[in-house]
């Protein structure tokens, strides 16, 4: 059966068109990234202290994958939805369902084929990063692999949403529209950060894809993020399964739909509790110093950080992405409480003297600061617990400044803007005509 489904996906023009368009987007992100990275690296050549700031994961891999995120979100659902919708439009869906007799098998096989088609989008970032490495740029294999694992999970999520949309609609156009709306709903949640009009969506940040992708793009494998994506993917596949059950009457289908939504919601909410993470970056640079981590793990009781900062306050974002992320790697049980989030309106409307405080609780003690500095907050945690601050020494990340110019740059630009997209288009042309 897979051969049939794979043919439907891989011999469709839209599959190769989306791969080529994605390659262009990814290629553009890559070229911009190497230009910015090279410009900075030139300065680093004369100032050694700057070298440590040149991190290819953040400077090259992440911007390259940024294009992939956009392309997967907008184009991935098309490939996924078409795999099933085309059967409905050709009126073969019912006969196929009867022929196979197993709706789940139909959904899974179609999803597998759609995954293979949408996964063509991964070709461009992989080849571009190989090209970067070939011209002498540095890449940490494991941390880069973690970033790709995140995108594989996202690919599965987008594909399953496309499949669910196709299962509940009649035409490809309807399915594609619904799937893209669902996938991009995550963007609205992301927009709530720093946009007062959408502040009410801030509480839904746990439902944003970006919330789960970002740590992994930084080389940290988070169990909760993986579980969240897996549970939403499984939920979407279950929805697709209910959607193709044409033998169920409407009330039973609706009941099954509600049940799947409830179970998926619960499972993904529970997934957030899996806070355990693994720092797989080179030199463990996403973590606190080893001695500090050990000492933090040895602190008795629960640790908590109360943050009196608005969700859209840059200090809060910096605190969450750096200090809290690092503290959680050492102590997954760390509680972060933001009392300002409980207010119905943005806190800046009634900021008081207490605004900006960060209160830490550890071992029964409490300390307070207005700083969001990682070192300050960690120090206060130990002080609150009545423990000495451990040695802060950590092996320094050397950084990998690298300048790409001249012929090398030209070659990379040609690969990014022409070679990969055109190769994908040519492969598609050959396959769809053979």
């Amino acid at each position, binding site marked *: 059966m897979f051969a*049939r489904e794979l*043919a439907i996906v891989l011999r469709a023009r839209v599959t190769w068109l989306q791969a080529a368009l994605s390659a262009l987007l990814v290629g553009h992100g890559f070229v911009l990234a190497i230009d910015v990275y090279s410009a900075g690296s030139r300065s680093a050549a004369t100032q050694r202290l700057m070298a440590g700031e040149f991190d290819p994961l953040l400077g090259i891999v992440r911007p390259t994958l940024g294009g992939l995120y956009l392309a997967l979100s907008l184009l991935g659902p098309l490939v996924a939805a078409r795999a099933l919708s085309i059967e409905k439009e050709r009126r073969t869906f019912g006969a196929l369902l009867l*022929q196979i*007799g197993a709706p789940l098998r139909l959904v899974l096989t179609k999803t597998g084929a759609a995954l293979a088609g949408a996964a063509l989008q991964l070709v461009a970032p992989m080849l571009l990063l190989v090209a970067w490495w070939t011209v002498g740029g540095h890449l940490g294999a494991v941390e880069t692999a973690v970033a790709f694992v995140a995108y594989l999970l996202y690919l599965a999520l987008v594909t399953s949403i496309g499949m669910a949309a196709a299962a509940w609609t009649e035409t490809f156009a309807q399915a594609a529209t619904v799937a893209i709306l669902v996938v991009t709903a995550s963007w609205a949640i992301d927009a709530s950060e720093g946009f007062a009009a959408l502040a009410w969506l801030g509480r839904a940040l746990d439902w944003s894809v970006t919330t789960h992708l970002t740590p992994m793009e930084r080389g940290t494998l988070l169990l909760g993020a993986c579980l969240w994506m897996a549970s939403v993917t499984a939920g979407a596949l279950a929805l697709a399964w209910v959607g193709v059950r044409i033998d169920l009457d409407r009330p039973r289908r609706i009941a099954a739909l509600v049940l799947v939504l409830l179970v998926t919601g619960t499972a993904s909410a529970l997934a957030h509790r899996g806070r355990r993470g693994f720092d797989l970056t080179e030199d463990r640079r996403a973590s606190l110093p080893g001695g500090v981590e050990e000492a933090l793990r040895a602190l008795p009781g629960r640790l908590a950080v109360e943050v009196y900062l608005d969700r859209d306050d840059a200090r809060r974002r910096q605190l969450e992405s750096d200090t809290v992320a690092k503290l959680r790697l050492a102590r997954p049980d760390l509680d972060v409480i933001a009392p300002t989030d409980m207010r119905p309106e943005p806190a800046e409307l009634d900021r008081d003297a207490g605004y900006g405080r960060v209160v830490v609780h550890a071992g029964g003690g409490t300390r307070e600061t207005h700083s969001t500095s990682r070192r300050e907050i960690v120090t206060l945690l130990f002080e609150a617990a009545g423990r000495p601050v451990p040695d802060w020494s950590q092996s320094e990340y050397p950084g990998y400044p690298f300048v790409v110019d001249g012929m090398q740059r030209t070659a990379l630009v040609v690969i990014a803007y022409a070679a990969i997209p055109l190769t994908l288009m040519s492969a598609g042309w050959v396959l769809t005509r053979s």
Partner: protein
Amino acid sequence: MAAELVVDGLSVARAGRRVLSDVSFALRPGDVVAVVGPNGAGKTSLLQAIVGLVRAADGHVTFDGKVLRSLSHHSAVFSYMPDDAEPPGEATVHTVIAHAERFGRPPPHLAGELKERLGVGRLAAQRAGRLSRGEKRRVALFAALCTARPVVVLDEPLATFDPLQLLEVLPVLRERAAAGTALLLSVHQMSDAEKVASQILVLDGGAVVAFGALAALRARVDRSDASLEVVVLELLRGRERDVRA
């Protein structure tokens, strides 16, 4: 007693409108029942309701005494070819054939015979999307007939074939029936139905006008040598008169 398909009081409503009302008939192994009637008579709705693709508002379908309720029940009994459905244009005929054999689980030699008789074997290397309409229909027919399932339901299977092609296709249908498969087909051309069907179900306005062998229908309109077309026209006129009265 051989397994019998019984359609009992089947009614279907679409968008609040009743498109089938209280349709009942039975189909035994080896029967070829042709459903005929004017456009909008409910032929396709009837076939879809029987195979379980459309939910019945009333009535039920039983096979071998068991009511068919779920998709797995229907899947075990029916092989179905929808009206104007085409094999996936992206796949090769070989892939479509292999898929049909995999899920149809036909008895030994059937696939080979059908490939030969329907002429699809020689198309194996071609993409289904590049075939002519008639060739596509042959491939779709192969996929429906290449099965061990006891009832094959074909919606307008003969519409795209020219008279010469029909000379090849009709014997295949008769042979499948002779081998014990029950065939239920909707047919637009009365002359085609006459050539292949052992029983005729005349449908109009979603209701059964008549059901039986051609001889019985001729007797009913008192035209012993009339063609099926004439018989059906007589039956439909008679029904119209009844409705007016």
